[in-house]
């Protein structure tokens, strides 16, 4: 029996050594260690042995079983390793192929500007308010101190619905609505659509967007206007941005100013964006005219304030170097996509 066990072990080890699949190893396990396997059979047949032989053979048989078991599991591990390697090799992919995308959309570039502008002014304590697109002539012109014969009131400039109603030509009437309904301190901005009787071309659109700002309180100065708008320009166009305030004329502010910023493209040296001047005209502003304050029931001796208005389309065009305002309203996906 000893010989038999030795022979089984020898044979088993050889066969395990030669096996090259998990299936073969499983077959060998059954063949040697299964219920009817050769080693099992010997262990079962031990009853026929003498008392003296039994422990010796028993021990030997157990050793053989353990060795075969170990050999089997080692071989199995090896085979699994090989199988995994093959699998990984089979699973090689072309990692340069395009990824599977879920397309997301994007906000309109003009509304992206509105969001950034709002964020800047909100951080300076401004509330965001809105007004109607169809306005009274009173709010759009009269209350804003526009002379009765001012050319901006002409049919060639303003869209009229009736003699008393217009499509607002500016966001400034929102100022009037705010001032009529609240007492200082007031600090608001108001973005929105505006309309002027302009035939569309690269720089004109009958519909465009403005953002209006208004601050009213005691002791508000022209210096405060400069300081506030300077902070805005730096936050929107970059910390290196310089501002320049030039005197100008608007009926509803006095003194009035236009603000230029140093060209963000060339930094002020002169380029195609700033037409060589180093400066870009950005917005109109001024101290709210006492006539306007009084019209809205605010004591112009006690309070003063400033207002400003900027073309959102214009600054968006400037910021992104867009050369045609009509692109904003054509809504071509190829255009919109670039603002993701």
């Amino acid at each position, binding site marked *: 029996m000893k010989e038999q066990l030795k022979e089984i072990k020898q044979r088993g080890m050889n066969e395990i050594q030669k096996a090259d699949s998990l299936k073969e190893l499983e077959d060998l396990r059954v063949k040697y260690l299964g219920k009817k396997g050769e080693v099992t059979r010997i262990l079962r047949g031990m009853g026929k042995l003498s008392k003296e032989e039994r422990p010796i053979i028993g021990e030997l048989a157990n050793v053989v079983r353990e060795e075969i078991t170990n050999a089997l599991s080692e071989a199995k591990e090896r085979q699994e390793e090989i199988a995994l390697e093959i699998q990984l090799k089979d699973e090689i992919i072309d990692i340069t192929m395009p990824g599977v995308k879920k397309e997301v959309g994007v906000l*309109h570039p003009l509304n992206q500007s509105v969001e950034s502008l709002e964020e800047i002014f909100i951080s300076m*304590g401004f509330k965001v308010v809105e007004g109607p*697109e169809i306005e009274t002539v009173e709010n759009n012109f009269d209350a804003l101190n526009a002379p009765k014969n001012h050319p901006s009131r002409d049919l060639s400039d303003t869209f009229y619905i009736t003699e008393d109603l217009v499509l607002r030509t500016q966001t400034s009437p929102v100022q009037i609505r705010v001032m009529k309904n609240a007492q200082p301190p007031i600090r608001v901005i108001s973005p929105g659509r505006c309309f002027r009787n302009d035939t569309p071309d690269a720089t004109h659109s009958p519909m465009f967007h403005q953002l209006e700002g208004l601050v009213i*309180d005691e002791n508000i*100065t022209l210096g405060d206007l400069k*300081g506030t708008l300077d902070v805005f320009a730096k936050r929107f166009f970059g910390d290196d941005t310089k501002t320049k305030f030039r005197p100008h004329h608007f009926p509803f502010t006095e003194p009035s100013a236009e603000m230029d910023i140093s060209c963000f493209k060339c930094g002020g040296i002169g380029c195609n964006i700033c037409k060589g001047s180093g400066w870009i005209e950005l917005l109109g502003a001024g*101290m709210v005219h006492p006539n306007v304050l009084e019209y809205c029931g605010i004591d112009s001796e006690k309070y*003063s304030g400033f207002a400003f208005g900027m073309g959102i389309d214009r600054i968006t065009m400037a910021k992104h170097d867009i050369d045609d305002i009509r692109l904003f309203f054509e809504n071509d996906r190829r255009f919109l996509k670039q603002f993701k």
Partner: protein
Amino acid sequence: MLAPRKWLENYVKISIDSKELRDRMTMSGSNVEEIRNLSESFDHVVIGKVLEIKEHQNADKLVVAKVDVGNKIIQIVTGAKNFKENDYLPVALEGATLAGGLKIEIGELRGVNSEGMMCSHDELGIPKSLIPESQKDGLWILKETYPLGKNFKEILDLDDDILEFEITPNRPDCLNMLGIAREVSATIKEKLVYPSINYREASNDAHEKVKIRVEDQNGCKRYIGKVLENVTVEPSPDWMQIQLMKAGIRPINNIVDATNYVMLEYGQPIHAFDLDKIQTNEIVVKESKPGELFETLDGVERELEGGETMITDGVKPLAIGGVMGGLDSEVTLATKTVLIESANFEPDHIRLTSKQLNLRTEASSRFEKGVDPEIAITAANRVCQLIQQMTDCRVLKNSVDIYPNPVMKREIFVRDDRINKMLGTNIPKMEMSDILTSLEVEVQILDEGLNLKPPTFRNDLVKEVDFVEEVARIYGYDVIPSTMPTATVTLGGLLSSRKIENLAKTSLTSQGLYEVLTYSFVSPGSVNKCRIYKESPLQKMIQLKNPLGDETSVMRTTLIPSMMDVLDKNNKKGSSDFRAFEIGRTFHHSEEILPRETTKLVIGMYGDKDSYYTLKGIIEELLNTLKITEVRFRREVHHPTYHPGRTANLYMNNEYLGIVGEIHPKVTDAYDIEKKCYVAELEFTELIQLADLEKHFYPLPKYPSIERDIALVVNNSVAVGEIEEVLKDFTEGILETFELFDVYQGDQIEEGYKSIAYNLIYRDPEKTLKEKEVAAVHDKVLLQLKEKFDARLR
């Protein structure tokens, strides 16, 4: 307003270069838009004199000229006709560059040597519209003589920077050289010197030659007549012609040029009549009659509306006051006696007349902005001086001056501390006084402030605040310190409606939708294109009185047509699929002062992967984001824009929230889109009311759930929505979720039936459910489904 630098230097010493002048003027409120220099475009052009003209032996249309250019005599071949021997003219020498970029070289023209070129105005950078009529198609023939061979642009002052000023409507006093010079003087702090006016007066009086009567005193504030005798009408001297051309006015003849010169210099439009053609020797200013006909200088016969201020000879009209003269009394080469009119007309009158006749002139555009009546007499004298200088005419003594109500200077008191308070500055009273004095404001310094009398040409200085600006702009906006408002702290932020809007936009863009912006006005036909019924309220659109065109003539009542346009455009441009949305307003008639504006959300899409369900999914996800629950989709079969079988209205209880569906094939046809389009329009104003910005936390489940899958076979006509109503209503609160995971028709299912498979999850939040309890509920639901829809388990 074009201001040649050298013209300004007649009145104020300018010792800084033109760029610095531009910057400083811009900073004091006179914005310079551009600096031009006509002579930059050409070089190497000198004064030449034609010595001899001979025929060209090989060409009929060419001649050969010998021209003295100072240091030598050169031969030039030319096709020009308008010159003769002894003419002085500009000659471009070898190596010269001309305005069009032409380079001059010695060459042959039809076998004859040509060593230079005689130039036209055009070739020397003068815009075609400014070239005098007689020399339009020929060479520039000079009127006077000059040293030969001298640099043409230097000797004729063409080497000059022309500054183009943007003049704001409140400053008509700056629409002339003296006005600009005054601003220069205040800005660079140099003294302003007015022209000295003097001429020889004849012994006879103008009053003997002409009588003037102003009947229309509303339209005409002042009328001055001056009489000139023995005038010779001819082209102006070169300096005058060049001065006018630099300022953008075409030279005509010495009389008209002198009036234009003074208009540019003082801002006072002046008209010259041929007095011999005014048979009555009388000027009567009166209103026109309706239907009256009048032929203006430009040869156009015009029908008058009635009420225009007319200059007449008492019987027939001579000129439309302040707008344009008439052909009959025009100054011609034969004119000997001239009546100079320096008058003042009411801005509103002129504006109306100019608009009604559709006739805008240099004169009318100045009068409608406002001209100072005080300046009329100075300007009249100045014209006489210039004309006498040019033609040695007789200027009759005195002027006929009708000026019933002379303007008076205003007096305004301002507080210096108020000015400083508004500017955030500390400017001393004395400095304010200096600034205002430099602008010709009379200043009286008092203890409590300044007593001011602005000049009569400054109609814009009325209130204290107007002087705040004057002080600020000359003091310098750039030196006023920048500060932040130190006032009360205010809380900034978005209105909650805008927060909800932003949240909705985030949901939509993250689902692949592009935001678009379309016009608020549309074509009245746009709703018809969407098959909206004639009687529908959507047809009652608010109309613009003066639209740009039919396409943009009414305010929209729905966003769907605009969205269809967007889909159409993108489809035509080759996008195989597209998803877009817009949040915009619609406009509706109302009883209030203002029309009603409501905000709508429109979603539109097309593409192979899209269907009613993908659009519905987007909306469901949006409603989840806004935490709007319990929205029901009810079938809509009548809406003419939509597919009758693939459209639903959204309701919350009985409140209409919008419509979602596939666009009717007839509508997509009308838009020429060959793909199926899916469009939803939601009442965004309502969604804002219903939305909830709060986040709510619910504890995670503590007890296990029991899952059941069921597959029901029902008639095709049964909607899953109906089945789901039963699932909701008959599960006694223990059905946590249900999810439709399969709808099947075909093999194994009989014709007309479908199999619907749900995954149901039962859970009791309070305790562990027992199989028994679930089974009881589950069986009851199945029974209900069987009773209601004849549903059986597959």
